[in-house]
């Protein structure tokens, strides 16, 4: 049964259609990506889910209508949004603090995860003293420790250099297999989506609609080499074709 389900969700900002008819679902323990060109309104979708914006259409979580009060999501924004004035340890406990958990208890819950996230020994450092990859891992740690039903990841690796990004994608895939999180990832990186996801929704340019739903049949753990890599390449090329052909071109009339 699907945990998150969206039916015909639309959103306009001042007469400008951003989301036109989005229907999608995410099952328990599933890794789903929303892939689309920049400015397609992907982040708007997350704003609707976290209650920062309101749109039309229906949203369900575990079959019940999604309202602002049901806090089902742990959200990881595009840039890491680490607070520069808090040490890494205190950044990772932020979500727990907001939930009303005491500082000591929150730290105790976070501490054992530091080694798994490659941050052991950096608890007392400030974010500015960490590398880009470490910052993203700290941000993800802050997100998952909230133990919400589902992770919302908004282009988490977009700001990293290519090598670090690849390393982080492999690390995230490994972590996801261990923890079987239910995750929804926003990205415009086709390779990232194919490498990480069970399913991919391909979005058109604005106003965004879902032009294709793709199930990624690659075995896990995902291997970046051999036959699986060739198969991944074929899927990537197919998706690129879909995206580039759905871009509005001159003389093409969208209604």
């Amino acid at each position, binding site marked *: 049964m699907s945990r998150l389900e969206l039916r015909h969700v639309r959103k306009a900002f001042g007469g400008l259609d951003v989301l036109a008819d989005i229907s999608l679902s995410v099952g328990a323990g599933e890794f789903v990506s929303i892939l689309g060109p920049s400015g397609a309104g992907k982040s708007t979708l997350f704003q609707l889910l976290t209650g920062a914006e309101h749109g039309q259409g229906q949203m369900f979580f575990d079959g019940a209508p999604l309202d602002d009060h049901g806090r089902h999501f742990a959200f990881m924004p595009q840039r890491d949004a680490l607070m520069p004035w808090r040490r890494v340890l205190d950044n990772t406990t932020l979500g727990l603090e907001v939930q009303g958990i005491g500082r000591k208890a929150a730290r105790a819950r976070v501490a054992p995860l530091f080694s798994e996230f490659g941050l052991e020994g950096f608890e007392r450092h400030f974010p500015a003293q960490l590398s880009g990859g470490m910052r993203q891992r700290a941000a993800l740690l802050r997100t998952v420790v909230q133990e919400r039903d589902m992770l*919302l990841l908004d282009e988490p690796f977009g700001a990293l250099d290519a090598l670090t990004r690849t390393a982080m994608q492999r690390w995230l895939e490994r972590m996801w297999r261990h923890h079987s999180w239910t995750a929804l990832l926003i990205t415009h990186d086709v390779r990232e989506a194919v490498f990480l996801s069970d399913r991919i929704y391909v979005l058109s340019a604005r106003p965004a609609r879902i032009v294709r739903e793709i199930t990624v049949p690659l075995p896990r753990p995902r291997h970046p080499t051999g036959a699986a890599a060739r198969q991944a390449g074929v899927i990537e090329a197919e998706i690129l074709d879909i995206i580039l052909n759905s871009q509005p071109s001159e003389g093409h009339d969208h209604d």
Partner: protein
Amino acid sequence: MVSSPSSYPRRLAALLAKAAPAVISVGLLLVAWEFYARYSGIKPTTLPAPSRVFAQAMLNREALVDNAIPTIRATLIGFACSLSGAFALSMLVDFFRPLRRALFPVLIVSQTLPLVAIAPLVVLWFGFGLMPKIMLVALVTFFPMLVALVQGYEATEAEIGQMLRAMGAGRWRVFLLARLPSALPYFFAGLRISITYAVVGAIFAEYAGAAKGLGIYMLNAKNNFRPDLVLAAVGASAALTLVLFGLTVLLQRLAMPWERAGREPAGKGPSR
């Protein structure tokens, strides 16, 4: 990390190297002034040499200290009042946006009032006591501090706010956890500027009328044709301003340890 004792002289040397240009430029200025005052034939009652100013300052140190104390008191009390008022109002403005449009025009006008005109009036209305000094110090420092704080809140990274709300934080929590700390660099920038205004404001208020204070001391010295004592009092007020300025820098270092941490190279590994 604790610095080893051997690095201590090296840090001192680095500090000296950093201070050297300022020391040299001020020194050259004083030497040039001294030469001009001594050898150009100008009268010491017009332009006294720095050595004479210094000697007279030493001779009159009791009177200078005696007059500096009310100035320090007026500066600190006025600034404290201004700061707490600006902080309270900045929070109100942050929570009720329309207030900003209602208040800022009035406050901008308050900044256009010439101190020369307003200081005697305030003394006329509130007498020679502490009250008019506090009011004038507050008048010159309140708006810069308010603007610094309000701008600081608005400099909060939008994504941090969005993330906190997604975590379930209300407006008050967002303010305490994100907006207030985000405003700290702006707050300290405003503090450094305002503290220098504060001293000038206090002296101006005393100049317009006071029983004691560096401002009234300057006025009396001028009326007695003692420019050396005027300059000695100027030196005292400059020293006071520098000390207060230094305190704000120190305070900022203590309040924002992450600023310096970010500039130092990241620890290669965990320090154990």
